[in-house]
């Protein structure tokens, strides 16, 4: 039997990477579109509610943690702690003076004593805020069982 002699064809093993750039750019576009800066990082356990409406972007934030520590943000920069109720009134008044229709978001821990929430609501009322959103998580059937 004749031995077939010839040049062996070399096949190099490789990973096809031509579409990687497309995938990477698609991911970048996704992240750019959905990018949302969280202005307040206060760790809270939000109350759960059935009724929930969308909060407008760049609304001013007031957060209250379990121990009653209050932090405020205009919605554009990171939240800062405030020392007294009067400071909340001053902050909210400045926000309302700049934009009378500015919405406020109240982010409070569900175990927070209502006393602290009451003081913040009072401060926002004094500052003539128009709409307050009480931040919550979606309630489900499992929560009621």
């Amino acid at each position, binding site marked *: 039997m004749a031995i077939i002699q010839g040049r062996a064809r070399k096949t190099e093993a490789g990973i096809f990477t031509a579409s*990687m*750039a497309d995938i*990477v*750019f698609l*991911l*970048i576009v996704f*992240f*750019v579109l*959905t*990018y*949302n*800066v*969280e202005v307040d990082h206060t760790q809270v356990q*939000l*109350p759960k*509610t*059935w*009724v*929930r*409406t*969308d*909060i407008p972007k760049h609304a001013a934030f007031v957060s*209250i943690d379990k121990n009653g520590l209050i932090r405020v943000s205009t919605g554009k920069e990171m939240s800062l702690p405030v020392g007294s109720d009067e400071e909340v009134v001053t902050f909210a008044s400045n926000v309302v003076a700049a934009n009378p229709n500015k919405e406020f*978001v*109240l982010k*409070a*821990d*569900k*175990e*927070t*004593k*209502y*006393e602290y*929430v*009451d*003081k913040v*609501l*009072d401060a*926002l*009322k004094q500052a*003539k*805020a*128009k*709409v*307050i*959103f*009480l*931040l*919550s*998580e*979606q*309630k489900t059937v499992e929560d009621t069982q």
Partner: protein
Amino acid sequence: MRINKKTIESEIFTGSMADVSFLLIIYFMVTSVFSATRGLDFQLPEDNTNTPEIKREDSIDIHVMAGDVIKVDGKQMSIDQILPYIADKLKQNPDKPVILRTDPDATYNDMIQVFDLLRQAPDKIGMEIKTISIPTQREIQNVWALFGMQ
């Protein structure tokens, strides 16, 4: 003498593009958050001196106390009994406002559960509560002071 011209092809160096893209992806993945962006909206009354003051006897008074105790017009009720009671009152007067008072010792969750329930009125009893008022302690004390009460 004839000189051979070297032709240099112009091109954009794209070798580092993948690195830059991956760095951008990592940055967005680390800094982006999927935070809660929904909640219960609460319209505050307009600053209008002509707005009539709501009297307790003309309204439905819900008093939320610590330890899941809820009193509606002075009668203790469970959370499931509130909407049927309000439905009876609204049948007599559809404009009847609801005042939601919460004790300072109660938790925020105690108050928000009742507020959430009141907002569900159109779905559960087929009637809308047109005015839900949440007075603060200062406002309550001001009203009491007005009537010479402590």
